[in-house]
């Protein structure tokens, strides 16, 4: 059965219109000028023009070539090669300076070097991602679309308060808090190529940063007035062979941090306070690229660069293997109760769902009874819409998935085609319902200014009036799209108050009435 989910969606907005919010069950849009006014008045909307950032014009290795001076002795050069490039660097240095070393030495090192290269080429033919440079590897496996070009490379809301942090292209990290006038800027010698940031749950100050060579955990005192916390506030967590770090996830209880590197087959579980780690080694897959901890804390999704992902249960740290047919698992997200996992596979245009029925509780029964196969819940294959400006093609591969903390809106960032103007990257939003049965309904597209594509998105963890989707655009702008609705799952407690916007009237849009996917109860 081929079901095309996108055909049931309302058509995208014409050029020049941007999505503002969802109210009364439909997405409202506005012209650019009016939008600019409303957006700029909000304190949390930010704009980082690309020109304002001081970028490194050259990387370290390229600047080294400009100053290379061969007047050093062989010993010095060998030591430097050992320090920079390890064994292969040393052998390379000895082989190239054959005029200064005995012949047998240069020949031997040449042979060993050839052998090593042959072995590593064999290894990387099994796992092609190992040939990538670490920057390319981060770009390949990051959740951000086109990471190397992103002005905002990583974004994270604090799990409990209205503050968030952004990692910028110039390797600095800024913390924004609407209640505070200071915006601390975090810089550290080791903080390069930030792939992900995440705040520690049940803590006001700790922020984990996944960097090129290590993991940093910043402790930023929320009451401090300092705008440049010193690098002494950061804990450096590193383990040999565990870099670059492309994904991190805190346990919802705030006690543990897991980190993943595509180079390392072991997933690290850190006890951050003690700076100690336990490697969880599983050989298959050739590395770990993306991690997501289920909101109830019982399971962790860990995808690998191969067509395989694992679901770890966190009680005894055993895992289930899930081989995919086509490609690697690109992204995934958990339902709020941790019972359902949605994921997208590279090379496919569908969203799969896994349902975990067993309760992984109790000391004796550590494993949960998992499902037998993943079900396709949505097909996002390319669909052509006719809009006044001309045809527009929406659909294709999925870059990332985000599910709002109440489980009512699901945002899907579609990659699009950067070469073709009529196939933009776009955010598709579904309405979801998890109780009593899992349902998926169309909601609409979130669009920005013309020529600007969405790069990163995240839902606010505790928005009272529905869901709040924060989108980082390629222009360096960060906007927030609220979805106002009354939650069906969570009864309203007197404390939280009612939504400020008028209640949705009983005027459901035509599109919304058609369900895309309904789980069959067997």
């Amino acid at each position, binding site marked *: 059965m081929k079901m095309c989910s996108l055909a049931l969606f309302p058509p995208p907005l014409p050029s020049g219109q941007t999505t503002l919010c969802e109210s009364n069950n439909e997405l409202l849009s506005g012209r650019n000028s009016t939008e600019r006014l409303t957006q700029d008045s909000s304190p949390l909307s930010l704009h980082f023009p690309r020109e304002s950032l001081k970028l490194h014009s050259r990387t370290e290795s390229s600047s080294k070539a400009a100053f290379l001076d061969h007047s050093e002795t062989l010993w010095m050069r060998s030591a430097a090669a050992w320090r920079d490039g390890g064994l292969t660097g040393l052998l390379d240095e000895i082989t190239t300076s054959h005029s200064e070393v005995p012949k047998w030495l240069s020949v031997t090192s040449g042979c060993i070097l050839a052998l090593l290269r042959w072995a590593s080429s064999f290894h990387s033919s099994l796992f092609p991602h190992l040939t990538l440079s670490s920057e390319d590897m981060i770009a390949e496996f990051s959740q951000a679309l086109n990471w190397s070009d992103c002005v905002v490379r990583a974004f994270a809301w*604090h799990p*409990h*308060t209205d503050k968030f942090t952004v990692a910028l292209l110039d390797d600095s990290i800024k913390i924004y808090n609407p209640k505070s006038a200071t915006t601390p800027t975090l810089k550290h010698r080791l903080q390069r190529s930030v792939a992900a940031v995440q705040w520690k749950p*049940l*803590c*006001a*100050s700790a922020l984990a940063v996944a960097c090129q060579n290590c993991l940093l955990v910043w402790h930023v005192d*929320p*009451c401090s007035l300092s705008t440049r916390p010193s690098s*002494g506030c950061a*804990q450096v967590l590193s383990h040999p062979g565990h870099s670059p770090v492309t994904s991190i996830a805190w346990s919802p*209880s*705030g*006690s*543990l941090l897991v980190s993943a590197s595509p180079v390392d087959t072991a997933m690290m*579980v850190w*006890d*951050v*306070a*003690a*700076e*100690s780690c*336990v*490697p*969880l*080694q599983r050989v298959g897959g050739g590395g770990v690229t993306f991690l997501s901890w289920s909101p109830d804390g019982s399971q962790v999704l860990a995808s690998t660069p191969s067509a395989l992902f694992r679901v770890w249960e966190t*009680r*005894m*740290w*055993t895992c289930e293997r899930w081989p995919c047919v086509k490609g690697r698992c690109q992204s995934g997200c958990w339902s709020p109760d941790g019972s359902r996992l949605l994921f997208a596979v590279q090379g496919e245009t569908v969203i799969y769902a896994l349902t975990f029925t067993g309760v992984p*509780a*109790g*000391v*004796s029964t550590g494993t949960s009874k998992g499902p037998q196969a993943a079900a396709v819940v949505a097909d996002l294959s390319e669909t052509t819409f006719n809009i006044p400006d001309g045809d527009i093609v929406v659909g294709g591969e999925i870059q990332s998935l985000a599910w709002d903390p109440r489980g009512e809106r699901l945002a899907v960032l579609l990659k699009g085609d950067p070469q073709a103007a009529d196939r933009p990257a776009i955010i598709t939003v579904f309405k979801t319902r998890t109780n009593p049965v899992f349902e998926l309904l169309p909601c609409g597209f979130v669009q920005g200014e013309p020529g600007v594509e969405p790069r990163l998105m995240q839902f606010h963890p505790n928005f009272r009036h529905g869901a709040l989707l924060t989108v980082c655009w390629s222009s360096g702008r960060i906007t927030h799209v609220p979805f106002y609705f009354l939650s069906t799952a969570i009864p309203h407690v007197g*404390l939280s108050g009612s939504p400020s916007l008028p209640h949705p009237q009983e005027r459901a849009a035509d599109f919304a009435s058609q369900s895309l996917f309904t789980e069959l109860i067997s």
Partner: protein
Amino acid sequence: MVNSLTAEENIIDKWVTIEIKMFSTYTSCWFIRKVICWRAAASIAWAVLLLPPTTAIFVILSKFSLFHPIRTITECLSLLTSASAIFSFILLGGVIIMVGFLFLEYHTVIPNIACSKIALFGQLFHPRQFVISLAHCLMGMIVGWCCAVTTGFRYETLAYSCAQSDGHPQMCLNEYHLMFLLAGAFVGFSHSLLGVIHNMNYVSFHAVEQYKYLRFKGSLGLVVKCSISQAFYSVRNFIVLYFFLGYIPKPWICKTLNLQLDSSVNPLDSIAGLLDLSLLYHLWISATYLLFMWYITLLLFRIFVSEVYSFPVQSSFTEDAHQCLPKVLTDKQPMILKFLALQDLALLSQHSPSRRSEVFSLSQPGGHPHNWNAISNECLSLLADLTQRLVAYHETVATNGRAKSLSSGSERKTSSETSVTSGIEDVMSPKPVFLMKTPASVFARSIAGDPQSPLTAPFTPDLDSPFASPAMRRLTAPVEQGSPWYGTVQSPHIMRRAPKLWSTSTGSQVNGSPPPSPASVPSPKQEPSKPSFLAQFLQNRKEQVKNFLAKRVLIMYLFNKLPEASSQALFADSQAHIWALEGLSYLVQASFSEDQFGVVQTSLPSILSSMLLLQEAVDRHFKLPHASSKPVRLTSSMGDSSYKTLRFALRATIKTAIYRITTTFGGHLNAVHVSAEHRKRLQQFLEYKE
């Protein structure tokens, strides 16, 4: 002299009886008999089962020849199935059982941290430690013999027939075999000493729980690495030792066994003899094999003993009541039982709704929340105990730090006035009782050669002396104040005072005026009644001070506190507090939706205030000048050093625990009765500003 000897014997006798009594109470506990002993037996059994494959690898490595690979394998196979190999297996199995038994006997969940060099020496030269080292020596020698026999070749026997110069055949000493035996003994001895220094007997608990097999697999690489590197260092040290002292055992063995020294063979305690690569390789491989076996036993023991044990929360049979969690938590001894109970509490509060409901349930009949009361009271008393300990330590350090700066200032200014003030400061310091117990006075006795106090004073388990480690004092002292760690509070206190007192006295010595010595100050009433005694006393003191001045560098070296160690010792048992905090906070969090009868509500104010008090105390501790704010990078060795980072883990856990409660309850916490100061702090937590 006879008197003193008998007194000494009495003390030792008493000590031994105390130990035996301790051990008998230890084994009398149902948990030790039914669980720990079985776990230890299982771990030893596994270690013995792993012996054949390990031995096979050892044999292959020791016999390997590059040019005859097939012959090597056939030789190894025939050797492994021979009768001598089976005898070796039996011997090695016995050694492993003995090693495992020693771990079982001396394992501890609270590391024994020496706060100064002298305390470390006290541990190393403790008579019990001496016996253990001797046992390790013997076992090492047995393993060395097995290795020599298995390796065969020129190492096989201690004696061989050699032709003397006159052509008459005789039995000569095989120095290679002797070297294997001695190397085994040396490696065993150094293993036992390093075990004390690195706290090898400490059993830690991991935050990440895994199945036993996976934990074993994950740690195997570390064991291999550690045994290889440690064997390298041990063999290196042994060779140096043998080079210098090798001439002692050789003639002795020859004399006792009536053997001759073969003059035609190079002696091994020479440079030419030791530059034998094959010998070095075989020594190193054998030492690695020995250490690997022992480390594997240790690893298996740790994994098995620290495994989670699930206690029932309540039992329907009264005879099982003593095995239930609320009862077990309140037990003082053995510590391992308490730790496992707290671990189980932390896990059940986090993962198991059904067992949580038993905690929140009411007794039938009566309707009292006995389970919750027992659990929460025990956790709160643990937290209060740590708070009290931290406050006491902080007070001591704060007053001591001030006095210390003054006395060092007096040295610079050389004015008698300042030294007098510092003396007064001493008298006025909050706990003058401790002045009597300074290590200086104990050491003075032994150095002055007072006939009434034998020279062995520091090595006997003198309970009042600072050489006694906190754990020793804890073992021997009756449990005071309802807390098993009461004794530890004093130890850093005493140690801290030592250097200050002596700096004071040196300052006064320079001035030439003999000041009232600190020890005499608390007894000023004796002054008019016995002036001659006092004069004599002062004279003695002066002599002692002179003695000390000569050895001052050494004294300072020995008595100076290691900066990290006192903090580590203070938080040595903090794993218990971490679990108590986690257990309480998760239970309180769960009570928001699961507690039907509101049993948790009643104790919420006390839980919150004790957590806040502890947080304050810990924060103050981290603000002390010597406290490091970041954990030291842990080196990977077989000695588990996770206790070094416990205080950092505790600091993070307190914050998370308070946040867990405030996040769950939110604004409802405003209705809880706490003091105004704590309300302010809670407000900070509610606003995420801590």
